[in-house]
Structure formats: C-alpha cells, structure tokens
C-alpha cells in the first residue's frame, strides 16, 4: 500500500496501517531526533510524540504538498526545537562523552594506528557536530543522513532554500576547518 492509502486508513482509525507506517518511518525519525537532541531518552519521547501526532493529525497531511517522510520530519523537527527551548539547553558535554565513549568501546579491540586516528577524528566530528548551532546541525543531518534535497530540508525547517544553504555552508565550513586542523596537526 502507498503512503496515501495507509494515511487514509489511519484517518479511519485503522491501527494496522498505523503499525505499518511506524515500522517504515520510526528509524529515520528517531535517528534524526537523536542527532538533534543527543539523548536516547529524549529521543524516544519525541519519537513517540511524532507518531501520536501523526495518528491525531493524519487528515492534515497533504500528499500533493509534501512526502509523508518530509511531513513527519517536520513534526519531529518542530518537537525537537520546542523541546530544546522548553528545557533551555542543548546537548550536554556529558552526553557527548557518553556517545564518544560508546564509540570508543565498540572499537577498543582495534589496535591499528590508522583505526585509532579514525576514531579520534570520529570523536572530534561528533563533538563538533554537537557544538554546532541547532539550525546548522539540522541542515547537515537532513541533507547528509536523511537524504533530503535542499528544498525538502528547507521545507522541514521552515526556511527559504537560500537560508538553508547558508546554514549548510556554515556547518560544512566549520566541520572542515576543525577536522582539517586535526589532520594538519597529525
């Protein structure tokens, strides 16, 4: 069944259609939310709310205006922004460390110096990503990970394409600068 048929069924209260949509979109939504929030528990709360909103507001989705994945990411983006504003915080350093530690533990058996260097660069990348302003981080996540076009990412973030490209440019420059310096130092 297509997204349109599934959403029509959700509008009628069909829970099996809801289950199908959750299984199709949960992974992408939770990954995106995690990259914005940086916390597993907050991400799970947001993902749960995204699909609750999908159930309640299914009739508001207009397939001729946006793909379902775009619409769901927009809901997730708005919830993440609201969450960050409400809690008046961005990702804490401890959470970055948690993630970095998990990276390290998963590759601790690797003794190659290249691997160690790669791990260091990865940790640096994660830390730098978390240091980016939310808008820049969202832009990078949507365009690099979620595979959205600039136009779709701009729609999700309620920005013009120009503004999105500006955010993307700043984020890329910042990441390249940080990782480039590290490479030069090594």
């Amino acid at each position, binding site marked *: 069944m297509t997204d349109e*048929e599934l959403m*029509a*069924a959700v*509008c*009628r*209260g069909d*829970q099996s259609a*809801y*289950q199908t949509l*959750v*299984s199709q979109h*949960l992974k992408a939504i*939770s*990954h995106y939310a*995690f990259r914005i929030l940086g916390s*597993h528990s907050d*991400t*799970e709360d947001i*993902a*749960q709310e995204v*699909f*609750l909103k999908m*159930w*309640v507001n299914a009739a508001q989705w207009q397939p001729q205006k946006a793909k379902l994945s775009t619409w769901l990411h927009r809901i997730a983006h708005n919830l993440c922004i609201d969450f960050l504003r409400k809690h008046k915080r961005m990702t804490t350093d401890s959470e970055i460390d948690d993630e970095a530690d*998990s*990276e390290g533990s*998963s590759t601790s058996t690797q003794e190659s110096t290249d691997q160690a260097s790669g791990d260091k*660069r*990865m940790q640096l*990348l*994660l830390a730098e990503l978390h240091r980016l302003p939310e808008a820049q981080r969202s832009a*990078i996540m949507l*365009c*690099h*990970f979620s595979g959205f076009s600039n136009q779709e990412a701009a729609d999700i973030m309620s920005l013009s*394409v120009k503004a999105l*490209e500006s955010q*993307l*440019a*700043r984020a*890329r*420059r910042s*990441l*390249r600068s940080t*990782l*480039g310096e590290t*490479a030069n130092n090594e």
Partner: protein
Amino acid sequence: MNNDESHTASHNTMNKQEFTTALDTYGSDLGSWPSVLAAQANALLVTDSEARQLLAQQESVEQLLEQMPQPVFPGLQNRVLQQPLPAKSQSWAEQLVDWLIPEQGFSMQWWRPLSAACLPMLVGIVMSNYFTFGVDVADQGFQAWDDELVMLSLTDTSEAATLP
C-alpha cells in the same frame, strides 16, 4: 540556484573564493552542483592545487559523516506501537461516504453505490403501496369514469359525418 547560475554564468572562470563558497553550499559532489558552476569548478581544479586540497578535505569530512554510527533504540518500536491512541471520531457523513465508496473490495465498490441509487425507487414503491396521496379508488368520481367510457363507446358518431 537559478540566480546563482545566471550570476556566475556571466563569469567564464571561477576563483578560489567562489569555489570555496560553492563547495560550502553544495558539498563535494560536483554532480549535485549547478551545471555552470560545476564546469567552472572542474576547470579550476585542473590548475589550482589549493582547490583540489580543499575538495579532498570536504570529501574526507563527508566520508566521516557517512561512517557515523547509527544509534540503536531497543524497544522503541514496541513503545510507540503500544502507546494509547485516542479514538477516531468520524461524522455520520464521513461514515456514510466511507460505507458507500469503500477503499477496498471491487464488488463492494459497485453494489453499494448501485443499491444507494435504487433506494429512492424502493422507497417510492413502498410509500405508494401504503399511501393514496388523495387518490381514492372508492371515490364516486372515479367510478363515473367507467360510465363515461361506456357511454362514449355507445355513441353513434357516424350521423355527424353523413350530415350535409
């Protein structure tokens, strides 16, 4: 993007600053750049080693981004599926439309609208069976119609035709 193309199309070449700006905006995949900018960038890359280095750095960052580990959320799907969902309340009109024109079932898509279309005729037959709507078969005037027809059949109209 079109503005960019028209703007930069007026230049035949791209300098390093313009290359850096485009690289920041569109990323390291020159295939995703506007065609005019991509052509100019390719020309610059042939001659400028700094531009090549910059492109290599950007490619390295993007490779690293692609290698980022995916977070795992065990139990999240069950949690989302098991959350209580509010009941859907449809209006009677929506329910009627859903019944009349079902999304699935080829036969139901035909017989339901047809039966709905036949409904006024059935109602008419039933009502006319029970109600006279002012027409009373026992009415004297109605009986007089029979008499009138008998008299009409006995009337000799040939005389009128033969009179001079």
